[in-house]
């Protein structure tokens, strides 16, 4: 039975990609990169434009502007009226949307392969020709505040996550929520949006990713035609965020709310991310997360806490190495009824220590590696999943070569690598431990 709290966690075994023969890339003269993933199973194409600009690139005090600008990109250009972009996609039987993360903003359409050119033409248009009115901005700001209401302020677990993340980063902007702190988001202006747009939305800061029933030559020709004429930005900022100072003191926080149904404890440690040309430590942490808390039934935490001791109704370990800057390694325990958060945390610490002392179960390691291999096969089934993987890797500091090498780097991870990575990451001075509690039941 899958537990509801599984939704807390990013799936770790998410399609590692290898260098497939069907993945090709090119770069236009203005600096725009292109990646093409050919898949001729059905006459469909996914067209995506990724910008190397996300919430962590925002100016101080303007939190939420990357995301609000994403909304505003649907509000019209010199050539398209507000809403006409999506209306045109729909009139061609397609669907479109966009998303903002800390390291990137991406726009996509899913359409019949023979409509690709129109999509590229419209994306090229809004890369440089955005036109938004003061009124559009004010209405959309209300929408964004309702989005924050719905997804964060109405959800104690999301509020708790926001507080924990803010405590995790002492200096780096990853501590700031993507949707923005309310007091800042409600003051964002048209000028703020346009300033961010003019700084970051340019061909030399963008990556085109096209997956589906197309050929690389055709996509490149269309890209030359529509994106090629766009002027590159000459003053694109160097992408270097402020970094973290040494973490010297453990942080602990308790959050209680009337609306909490199920208390839990979550601890995250600052952890290294995948970097171009050096992914082995991240690979070791990826496998560590699987061994410790990947499967509820067979992982070390799951076996001990959910089965042997029945202290937890759910437990997990999570790590996502794909991040431009330092990421986190996390542990979660949802205690069984009548188990206190203190007892749950003590049990977690005891079981993790036990894991570190014992030799690694080689059968379990073999099963995990088999699953990683298989996820590559299953991953090829989804165009959008493939396009996402490449777009996010390239906007988070990796190259196609790193993406190609990743499965081999994972396969090469040894017991010693895992123990060494664990010893380094499990340092309480760089950890945030949070307790989510019911109001009136604070411990």
């Amino acid at each position, binding site marked *: *039975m899958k537990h509801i709290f599984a939704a807390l966690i990013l799936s770790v075994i998410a399609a590692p990609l290898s260098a497939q023969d069907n993945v090709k890339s090119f770069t236009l003269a203005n600096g725009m990169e292109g990646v093409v993933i050919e898949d001729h199973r*059905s006459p469909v194409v996914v067209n995506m434009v990724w910008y190397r600009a996300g919430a962590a690139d925002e100016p101080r005090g303007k939190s939420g502007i990357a995301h609000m600008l994403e909304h505003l990109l649907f509000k019209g250009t010199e050539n398209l009226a507000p809403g006409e972009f*999506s209306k045109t996609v729909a*009139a061609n*039987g397609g669907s479109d949307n966009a998303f903002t993360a800390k390291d990137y903003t991406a726009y996509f359409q899913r359409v019949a392969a023979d409509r690709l050119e129109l999509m590229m033409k419209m994306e090229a248009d809004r890369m440089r020709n955005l036109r938004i009115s003061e009124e559009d901005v004010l209405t959309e700001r209300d929408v964004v505040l309702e989005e924050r*209401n719905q997804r964060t302020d109405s959800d104690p677990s999301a509020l708790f996550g926001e507080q924990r993340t803010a405590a995790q980063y002492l200096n780096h902007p990853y501590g700031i929520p993507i949707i923005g702190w309310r007091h800042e988001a409600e003051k964002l202006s048209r000028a703020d949006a346009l300033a961010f747009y003019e700084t970051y939305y340019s061909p030399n800061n963008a990556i085109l990713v096209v997956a589906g029933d197309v050929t690389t030559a055709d996509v490149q020709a269309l890209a030359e035609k529509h994106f090629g004429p766009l002027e590159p930005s000459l003053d694109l900022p160097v992408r270097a965020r402020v970094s973290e100072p040494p973490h010297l003191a453990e942080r602990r926080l308790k959050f209680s709310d009337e609306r909490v149904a199920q208390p839990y404890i979550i601890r995250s440690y600052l952890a290294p991310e995948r970097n171009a040309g050096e992914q082995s430590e991240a690979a070791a942490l990826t496998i560590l997360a699987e061994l410790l808390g990947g*499967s509820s*039934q*067979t992982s070390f935490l799951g076996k001990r806490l959910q089965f042997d001791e029945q202290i937890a109704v759910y437990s997990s370990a999570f790590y996502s190495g794909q991040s431009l800057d330092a990421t986190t390694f996390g542990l979660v325990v949802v205690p069984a009824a009548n188990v206190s958060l203190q007892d749950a945390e003590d049990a977690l610490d005891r079981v993790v220590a036990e894991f570190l002392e014992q030799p690694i179960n080689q059968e379990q390691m073999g099963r995990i590696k088999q*699953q990683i291999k298989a996820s590559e096969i299953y991953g090829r089934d989804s165009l959008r999943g493939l396009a996402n993987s490449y777009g996010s890797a390239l906007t988070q500091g990796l190259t196609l070569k790193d993406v190609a090498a990743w499965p081999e780097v994972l396969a090469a991870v040894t017991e010693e690598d895992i123990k060494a990575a664990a010893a380094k990451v499990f340092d309480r001075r760089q950890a945030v431990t949070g307790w989510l509690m019911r109001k009136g039941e604070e411990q």
Partner: protein
Amino acid sequence: MRIFLTALSTLILIPLSALAIDIQEVKSKGGFTAWLVEEHSIPFVSIDISFKGGASLDLPGKRGATNLMVGLLEEGTGDMDARDFAAAAEGLAASFGFDAYNDSVSISAKMLTENRDQAVALLRRALIEPRFDQVSIDRVKSQVQSIILSDSKNPEDIASRAFSAAAFGDHPYGSGLNGTEESVEGLNRDDLIAAHHNAMAQDRIFIGASGDITPDELAALLDDLLGDLPAVGAPMPKQAEYQLTNGVTVIPYETPQSVAVFGHQGIERHDDDFFAAFILNHVFGGAGFESRLMSEVREKRGLTYGIGSSLYSLDHGQLFIGQVASSNDRMAEVITVVTDEWTRMAESGLTAEELSAAKTFLTGAYPLRFDGNSRIAGILTGMQSTGLDIAYPDTRNDKVNAVTLADIARIAKRLMRPEDLRYVVVGQPDDVENTD
């Protein structure tokens, strides 16, 4: 993300398929029928199996039995306990999904070609001889209880549960399929065995498959996998009578944003005017950004992040409902706008331009719905359980195109009844009166 609509909007029951797709009917020696799309370029297969009936077969006083039973299928079989079973599945890198819905129990499997026989043998044991040992029952019960508790504090769940309860009363559709804290506590091993026998029988199976498998291989696989299930299960549930009147129910809940579920009785999916209703809902609140509700409530007024409506046509009861979240001080305005739109649609239907744009979208989007083996397998199962024939994909767009403005006007009058409109609002909305 620019839009994030809740699960509500995925409930449209127009079955889907793609035009360029070749669907084969496969009949096994043991009497199973499956629809198959062969696709050998990636070495795995997706198989989707649906047992009609689902959680609505829960016996009186045993609400949650089918759901708990399905949750226990992966928790051990024969001499394997939950951990042994998971280890075996993980070692094969097979993925098995077991889900209970209102009208079905669904099994979705993804299996690598290289070890498919072993994966089928493992899945067979889970389906045919689940262990239901007490330790697992207790553990999964505590997980279900934790979910029930979480849902009880979630404004969206509170609103839809209250709407369903008022709409369908004592019928299983009137309560959550997880059951209640008390009903789940009372379930024992015998209840689970009965639920398994009632819900997972050969007389109610629909099968879709897509991927790296031939028709002969699939036929043999199905006989192995399903041949030892009981021949006959429990009779289907009775029709659920719609019991709700118009008005507003306010459920006080401390939160900055109210959630509203609104609507009234819907339409059967076998109704002659279902296609017209489907198009009407698409324009009204089903089309995401292009819908009237999104345009009026979000784009023009900034009152919400998302609003949508859907034809919730279950096998034994139907709703036409929507959902929206808005700040407590703006919900009253949302309700006014929604009611006005409901009335406008009932009175004047669609414009020629709206109908034409909807047809263009729906017919153009149809072939794109095939996105990979897992999706296709699910679509094939859905088509069969809805009673559509195998050639349906070739005629579906013609049926959409055949809908006229007169059809729309007729269904608009019948389907959209502002005088029956009920809102269930969870939160602390300003100036919204409870009429109960």
